[in-house]
């Protein structure tokens, strides 16, 4: 079913393409929403990504899953856009993630269990915290913890080795946790 839709889409049939993406639309939009951090950008980016996918569907090779391929386009589209805006939006963990080792990040908050006691605030600030992650960290966390993909699938979507997925995820979660703590402390 999906493959016939893909073939028709390759020939330029818009309605087949729409049928093909209808079940992914919501995930595409949500990935874009988490990557971009607001609804407006999420809508623009997800639509741009879907249009890109429509234009490039001729290059889609059946060997990988369609959703994998589609999400890769979405994430890359968002990352490109975020890179363009880099001058305005600075990420909090970028410097940490790039230059510091794991110990530097986690050294200071041993036995400081405030997170567990701040459940309600946590939910509210989680979104902000996500936005403060670097683009690469964000995409791993979104795919793993929000969408529930396996390491292998994430590696395929982001086109990085599984070892990198694993280490990037470790680092991102730790960063996310420290950002959350900083945000809670500020409140």
């Amino acid at each position: 079913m999906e493959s016939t839709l893909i073939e028709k889409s390759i020939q330029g049939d818009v309605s087949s393409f729409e049928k093909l993406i209808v079940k992914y639309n919501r995930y595409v939009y949500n990935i874009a929403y988490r990557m971009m951090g607001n609804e407006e950008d999420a809508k623009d980016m997800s639509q741009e990504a879907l249009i890109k996918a429509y234009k490039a569907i001729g290059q889609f090779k059946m060997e990988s899953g369609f959703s994998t391929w589609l999400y890769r386009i979405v994430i890359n589209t968002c990352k490109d856009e975020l890179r363009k805006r880099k001058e305005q939006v600075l990420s909090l963990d970028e410097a940490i993630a790039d230059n510091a080792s794991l110990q530097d990040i986690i050294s200071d908050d041993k036995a400081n269990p405030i997170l567990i006691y701040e459940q309600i605030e946590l939910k509210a600030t989680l979104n902000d915290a996500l936005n403060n992650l670097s683009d690469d960290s964000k995409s791993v966390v979104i795919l793993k913890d929000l969408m529930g993909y396996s390491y292998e699938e994430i590696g395929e979507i982001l086109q990085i080795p599984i070892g990198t997925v694993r280490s990037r995820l470790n680092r991102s979660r730790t960063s996310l946790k420290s950002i959350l703590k900083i945000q809670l402390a500020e409140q």
Partner: protein
Amino acid sequence: MNCEQARILMNAAIDGDINEHERSKLDQHIDSCEACTVEFEELKYVVQMLGEMELKALPIGFEEELHEKLMNVKHDSEPVKTGNTLLKKIRNIHIKKRYYGYVATAAVLLMVVVIGKNILFQPKYESAMINTESSEEYGRGSDGDMGKLSFNESVALAEAPASTAEFEMSNQQLDSSYGVTGFAETPQSTPTNGDYREDRLIIQTANLRMDVEKYDEVYLQLTIWVKAAGGYVENESTSYKTNYTERENLKYGYMTLRVPATGYESMINQIKSLGNVTYDSANAYDVTKNYRDTASEVENLKVTEERLREIMTDAVEIKDILAIENELTRIRGQINSYERQLKDWEALADMTTITVELNEVKSLKPMIEPIDDTLFGKAKEGFIHTINSIKLTVEQVFIWLVSKSPILAILGLLAILAKIVYTKKRRKS
């Protein structure tokens, strides 16, 4: 196990990516280390929270908006499809980085040779291109200029007024001295606002490829007919076929004709009678629906505009006036762009586009030459010709090399310098 190792295992444990042995080691460590217990709980908690984040619903109108954009993309991409894929193919030819230098050098050398050859050696093959874009100059040019072209003098002179006329016609500056009548009533009437066509709008195009015996006569005949029908030549080009011998100067060219849709059928039949048709295709594209949709869209927008103007008269505050003005400008812009589209369609439907490719042949009758000594004679002639051209080329290359040796020396020096800089850079990096 130390805390650092434990922390790496924690993530694995949360994702279920851990074996029994590692798990028990991690549990042991966590039992004995308070900091890691907290860390593990926090980490689990964050991941759990992330998992609980709700999926957002698609915004209202998301799919409709997307559909519109996709349709736009579809229309935009259709005409350039072939160019695009070709470009992609070229891009897909991967050249390994370390070959860049060689490829670049080869390309530069090739360019130098080609340019040098063009400058130094008079090419035997000349072509003359006449496009409407350039025909202004061509028309203004003196007879002497035209003489330079390798066309027969008579042809060039015959063509000159014709092409001038065409050009001026297409610019709507009708000059009566050319005796062109009937063109004044070109059906490019611009519709007044709110006045739309009721009948079907069909954009017709036709492509013809023909073998003809006498290129120049056919060419003239075509221009005369087109003018008589009230049309014009949009584009044309003529060149000699790639002939290395100067014995037969056969021509090849194409013309894009715009003729009123009413005279289209008879025009096609007339053209076909001029030679042997080798290819014939026609296409009709019905834009009636699109046209009507757009027209009603314009009407709607105009109603909105009218209402905004009414509101404008009542508006007092500067803020409101500015807001309304903005909206008015936006709507006016939309109306204009739709109307332009409508006019384009009308113009395309009024004037049919016929593309004629003309291929001059010696004779239209199929011809089988007797196999006799002329075959060997031709072979001999060809052989001598080839030998001569090889000799000539070698001579010319030699002369070129000697005469250009100073430049070549400089180029060589530059190449060596570039190579040194390149290798140094690579070594550094």
